């Protein structure tokens, strides 16, 4: 196989100018930080949008200060119009799913740490890597710009179902220019992520240090590798789907629009299209996408937990096998988003079975994590708290999946707050907890300074309780039949549910405010945090064998050689510690520990 390592070494000297160092950098570490910064901006924007949504849901006539200035048409007098609520909702979800959950655990941490964890100086195609960030950034700008054009952003949800998303401005505010900009943004985003996958995969396969076999790769590397393979196939379907959607708008095609639709009194000049086709294309991407969001977080949590349990997981191979199974099965389950869509009811049953079966690898992972805690030496740090919190959230989000996987139950809870509760637990909370865990864990390595553990633990406690207060009630709302994507609740049978919404709103505002503690900790520590040692957590993988932060070429001219699997904990090292670094030539001496493979 062509040796890409030589290629990366020869053509990749240290940059000199400010622009090449910090802006258009080909250094994977800078690109990782850029992605992280993008994710940070996106998450605060998305969270701000959710505050406005939740305030409106709790108190529909509330005048929200500043909103009239931001959008005189969308919020005259500070009161959200129905369309603006949907527009903010669409943007909230789009920012969060794409620019936070795909960017942070995968593109941000993956870019920074994948090459280092495999012992490489950089990715094999640094310029393509740089392009992947800037293309993603352009996608972000296109999405943000949709706030400022015409009658605002799209209102069809992040799922953009046709024909609402396809027929154009006649369907409502934001459905003309706003929808086209949405589709363009997402298509460009797909390109950015495909470019990223083009680097992640050869880095993993071709750039590994001597001695680092596939079975010695940290679980984070496996997670990023599996995710990038999923990304190749998933984004490669969404991108053309978005292009077809744009064509329906701009060129007059009818991929997603059947004949004889009468929208706002006008017969639409389209025929021959299929609305269900959009759903199939979207969800073929959409379900693997949620695993693209969670698998890196699973890898991070596994890696962090092992460090702080001071022992390997019960089985490295079973964890990898489970992540691979999740990735594989994720393509077979997508129709569970379409049980009552009007597709053949037999198809619903066909999709239901793998949806139930995918619970098995998820359960195996949870049991492996729980079982590995048994008789471990668990250290409590902010990183490990968020990793433990992840397990709690994943259990909660996972069991609500039991309901949604069964078509007859989905009849009752489809498009209700039950679904919203489910996906917020597994994505908004569990995946975010994975990002937080990774942040507190790797911040010292990325920036050479420690974050405040005191503030970190406060952040954890308030967030952990806060998110349960926000999202657990959503399940009750859904079971009672409370429909989602409503800007107000006017149905008789939901009147008694409004107090729950108000409770969730208060919890959301509180929990959102708590994230300012995290932001303060991040910024303050970046400049004034205590200087970090090379290996503050006594961790074994290769990133901890170099300086904090790493030098330009990651290892200061050294080419690490790997002698051990990634999780030599609970061993007797020659220096007296209970772990052996992957690149340490000393032999493994089990203490009383039993290492499991």
């Amino acid at each position, binding site marked *: 196989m062509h040796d890409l390592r030589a290629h990366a070494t020869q053509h990749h000297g240290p940059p000199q100018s400010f622009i090449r160092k910090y802006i258009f950098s080909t250094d994977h570490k800078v690109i990782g930080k850029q992605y992280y910064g993008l994710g940070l901006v996106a998450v605060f924007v998305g969270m701000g949008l959710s505050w406005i949504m939740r305030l409106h849901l709790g108190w529909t006539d509330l005048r929200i200060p500043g909103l009239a200035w931001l959008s005189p048409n969308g919020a005259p007098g500070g009161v959200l*119009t*129905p369309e603006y609520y*949907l527009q903010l909702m669409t943007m909230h979800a789009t920012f969060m799913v794409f620019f936070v959950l795909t960017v942070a655990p995968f593109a941000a941490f993956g870019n920074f740490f994948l090459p280092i964890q495999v012992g490489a100086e950089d990715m094999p195609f640094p310029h393509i890597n740089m392009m992947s960030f800037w293309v993603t950034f352009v996608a972000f700008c296109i999405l943000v710009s949709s706030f400022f054009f015409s009658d605002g952003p799209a209102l069809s*949800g992040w799922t953009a*179902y046709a024909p*609402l998303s396809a027929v154009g401005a006649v*369907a*409502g505010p934001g459905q003309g220019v706003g929808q086209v900009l949405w589709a363009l943004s997402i298509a460009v985003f797909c390109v950015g992520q495909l470019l990223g996958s083009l680097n992640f995969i050869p880095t993993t396969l071709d750039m590994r240090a001597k001695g680092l076999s596939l079975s010695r790769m940290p679980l984070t590397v496996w997670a990023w590798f599996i995710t990038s393979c999923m990304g190749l196939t998933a984004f490669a379907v969404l991108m053309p789907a978005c292009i077809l959607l744009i064509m329906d708008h701009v060129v007059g095609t009818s991929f997603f629009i*059947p004949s004889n*639709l*009468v929208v*706002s009194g006008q017969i639409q000049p389209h025929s021959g299209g299929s609305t*269900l086709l959009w759903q199939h294309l979207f969800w073929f991407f959409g379900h693997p996408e949620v695993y693209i969001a969670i698998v890196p977080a699973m890898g991070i949590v596994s890696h962090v937990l092992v460090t702080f349990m*001071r022992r390997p*997981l*019960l*089985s490295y191979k*079973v964890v990898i096998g489970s992540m691979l199974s999740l990735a594989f099965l994720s393509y077979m389950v997508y129709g569970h988003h379409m049980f009552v869509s*009007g597709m053949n009811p037999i198809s619903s*049953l066909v999709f*239901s079975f793998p949806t139930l*079966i995918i619970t*098995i690898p998820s*359960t195996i992972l*949870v*049991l*492996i994590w*729980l079982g590995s*805690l*048994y*008789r471990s*030496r*668990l*250290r*409590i740090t902010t990183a490990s*708290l968020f990793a*433990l919190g992840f397990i709690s959230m994943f*259990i*909660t989000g996972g*069991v609500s999946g*039991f309901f949604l996987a*069964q*078509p*007859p*139950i989905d*009849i*009752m809870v489809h*498009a209700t707050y039950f679904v919203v509760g489910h996906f917020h637990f597994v994505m908004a909370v569990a995946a975010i907890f994975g990002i937080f865990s990774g942040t507190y864990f790797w911040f010292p390595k990325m920036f050479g300074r420690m974050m405040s553990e005191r503030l970190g633990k406060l952040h954890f406690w308030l967030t*952990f309780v806060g998110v349960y207060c926000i999202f657990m009630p959503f399940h*009750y709302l859904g*079971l009672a*039949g409370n*429909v989602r994507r*409503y800007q107000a609740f006017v*149905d*008789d*049978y939901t009147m*008694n549910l409004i107090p729950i919404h108000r409770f969730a709103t208060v919890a959301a505002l509180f929990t959102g405010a708590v994230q300012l503690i995290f932001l303060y900790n991040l910024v303050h520590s970046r400049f004034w945090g205590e200087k970090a040692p090379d290996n503050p957590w006594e961790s074994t993988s290769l990133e901890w064998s170099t300086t904090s932060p790493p030098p330009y070429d990651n290892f200061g001219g050294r080419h690490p050689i790997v002698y051990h699997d990634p999780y030599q904990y*609970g061993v007797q090292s020659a220096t007296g510690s*209970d772990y052996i670094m992957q690149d340490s030539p000393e032999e493994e001496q089990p203490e009383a520990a039993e290492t499991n493979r």
Partner: protein
Amino acid sequence: MAKLLAVTIVIIAALSAVPILRHTWEPPPDISREGPAIDHQIDETMKEAGICFLAGQVVLALMIWAYAGRGREHKIGKLPGGALGMVILAFLIVGTEVIILGAVSSKVWAQVYFAPLKPGAVAVQVQAQQFAFYFRYPGPDGVFGPIHPDLINDATENFFGLDTDRDPASRDDIVTAEMAIPVNREIQLMMHARDLSHSFYVPALRIQQDFVPGLDLSIHFTANKIGRYEIVCTQLCGLGHYNMKAYLDVMSESDYNDWLKKEAALQ
């Protein structure tokens, strides 16, 4: 701090279970023939999911309580059964549940979707549009007149685009803004989307079905309790989506026939 986390996890798990155990917030009471099977399936799943949820959180809490802060003087131990045990447990618990839940839910689904239409069913067409439902009854000839999109005119209340001058089948069609059906009679609901995707959700009937623009589909059900119930749209269709609703009146056979006559006179 670890012990506090363990206790917090258990308290949160317990508090989360309380509204479920007390049935604090429930869907409207079921009024359909197929509903009890769906409700039963939800109840059974709730038991299993509830046990998994509580057990998972309690085990997590126990592990944190017992093993946080242990130093090197404590041996690291292997869980009896190891990874293989966990895999077998996952297959046993989840696999069994999957098979049982999957098998039973398939049966319930089949009752809803694959049961043949009973003879003598009452045919009603529902049309979804931004942002209202309209209903059409075929009249004494039992035939729905064709829809002409070019004749649709909401201002003149020709919501369906009927040509009563040229289509005899349309002349006796009865178009209403509310849906009325006789109790204990099979209803064939024919679903037509005029513009975009919508959905027909009647929580009391335990029915939710999306409309598919370009594809008229039908479902059937039987309501077994007289009363007035809400029909709401659940498929995002634009700015009025939240307010897109109609009422379903389930009546005695005689009241239904009277209602139909009254509506026919208003056409």
